[in-house]
């Protein structure tokens, strides 16, 4: 996904000299093309994320459009108060790019594996929260968020071999991406697991089982009408996210359904309220914590019959 981010940012920087890439000393083997093309629009801020975020606010207050990049925990948690007070409170046009979302850095331990970022970012007023499924969706989101003046958090994961889209989709921020419609149950998903769910939906179709599949690259804002329309008459909903079951996609969807007095059964798949302390590759950890394709499929089938 980060290569998708850089590709899209190069496109933006080429037409807008106010676009800046700020990094907390990260981006090896990804940022080189940007640095080569736009050396004056690239700033390595050193390993000082709090300063980097505050400085980005100052740049934005002076008409610049900083894209601030670091690993998820160092950006969203280390610099949380700067994000809250300098970015969101002042409502300035700073885009935060967190790399290594979910299990991306599964071999590095829980200092690097963060499952709480979407929840925390979602509670901040003025903040837009985005979680793409693959590289092409990342490119689309980078272009979509450029069009806004809002503070935005973009959570990138290492998508590896996974991709859902064949071409760059057009995404209106907040409007769900409906992959399948008309089933008895709706699966609502964000991030990497979107790729698994698209495959599952196709496999189920072969077995003459239809599900409604809704991708949620935007956790905030969510166009509620569009979401409810996509859910349609489904009375069972499964939410899937590589994130804590507290405060993320499942919570966002639940809050909307509650507001609209939706009646039915809703189940959340995600990481339970504990640090996922096992160490391994992303895919191995997904299996260990039940967020792999097979377990999601099993859960869908179980929910269909219960």
């Amino acid at each position, binding site marked *: 996904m980060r290569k998708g981010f850089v590709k899209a940012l190069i496109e933006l920087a080429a037409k807008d000299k106010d676009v800046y890439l700020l990094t907390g000393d990260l981006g090896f083997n990804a940022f080189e093309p940007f640095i080569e093309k736009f050396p004056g629009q690239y700033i390595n801020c050193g390993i*000082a994320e*709090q300063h980097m975020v505050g*400085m*980005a606010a100052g740049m934005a207050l002076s008409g610049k459009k*900083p894209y601030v990049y670091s690993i998820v925990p160092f950006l969203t948690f280390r610099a949380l108060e700067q994000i809250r007070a300098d970015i969101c409170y002042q409502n300035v046009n700073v885009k935060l790019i967190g790399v290594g979302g979910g299990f991306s850095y599964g071999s590095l331990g829980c200092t690097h594996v963060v499952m709480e970022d979407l929840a925390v970012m979602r509670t901040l007023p003025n903040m837009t929260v985005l979680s793409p499924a693959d590289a092409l969706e990342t490119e689309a989101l980078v272009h979509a968020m450029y069009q806004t003046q809002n503070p935005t958090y973009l959570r990138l994961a290492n998508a590896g071999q996974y991709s859902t889209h064949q071409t760059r989709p057009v995404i209106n921020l907040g409007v769900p991406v409906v992959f399948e419609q008309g089933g008895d149950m709706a699966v609502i998903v964000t991030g990497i697991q979107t790729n698994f769910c698209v495959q599952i939906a196709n496999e189920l179709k072969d077995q003459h089982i239809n599900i409604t599949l809704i991708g949620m690259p935007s956790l905030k804002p969510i166009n509620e009408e569009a979401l409810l329309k996509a859910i349609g008459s489904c009375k069972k909903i499964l939410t899937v996210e590589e994130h804590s079951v507290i405060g993320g996609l499942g919570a966002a969807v639940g809050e909307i359904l509650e507001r609209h007095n939706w009646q039915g059964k809703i189940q959340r798949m995600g990481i339970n309220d504990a640090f996922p302390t096992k160490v391994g590759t992303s895919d191995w950890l997904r299996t260990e914590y039940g967020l792999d394709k097979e377990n999601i499929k099993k859960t869908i089938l179980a929910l269909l019959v219960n």
Partner: protein
Amino acid sequence: MNYVEISKELRKKVVKLKHESQGGHLGSALSCIDILTVLYFKVLNIDPKNPLDENRDRFIFSKGHASAAWYSVLCQKGFFPESELIESANGSKIAGHPVKDSFPGVEASTGSLGHGFPIANGMALAGKKDNKNYKVVVMISDGECDEGTTWEAALFAAHHKLDNLTVVIDYNKIQSFGKTDEVMNLDPLGAKWESFGFDVQEIDGHDFDQLEKAFDKQNDKPKVIICHTIKGKGIKTMENTVESHYHKVTDQEYQQFTEEINQSKL
């Protein structure tokens, strides 16, 4: 009005605000009044009639807890009418810490210490990128030098040669709960900044001539002006006390303090 007269007006405004809000930070506001006087009536290229001029100098008031001082000088300079100089009343625009856009001239919301300097760096860097000649001045407190971001920002400013940036330290030597040399010793403060790559000046922060001269200095480094000041300056019972950080101005004191300022020669 000359500097002395302006600074007296500002001190009286601060006492009024603190009396009506019954809030703290009286001493923190009084220690930086003379610095603000020189900044707003001599140094800064700003125009209350054109507050968003893209070539204006930027001033960030990072020691936001002393907002009464800043709002007073903005009012005195004409950024908003005196009728709106009301602190912390229900519905008033002035809070205990500055809020961006509460009035023209409030460039940033501050109050969480260690935030203003990084913001100022961003503005100074943007000015350089745009080949603008504006300068950026940020005022921080001595206690704020405990914050890690102050030193992160110092590293950045020096590395990027932000010679359009001036950090002003209101060094009144008393922080929230004690003297700075008892809570977290900062000295030798000048040597620290010098070692980070700053041009360092240490002056009497109540001496208008020294302040003028210090702000005039030009060179290719980011600058820090360490202003030795007196917490609570202008009200004898408040001077150099931790109490002045918390003291609530009573009705009787409001009259007394105002009269003391009127009579003083400062």
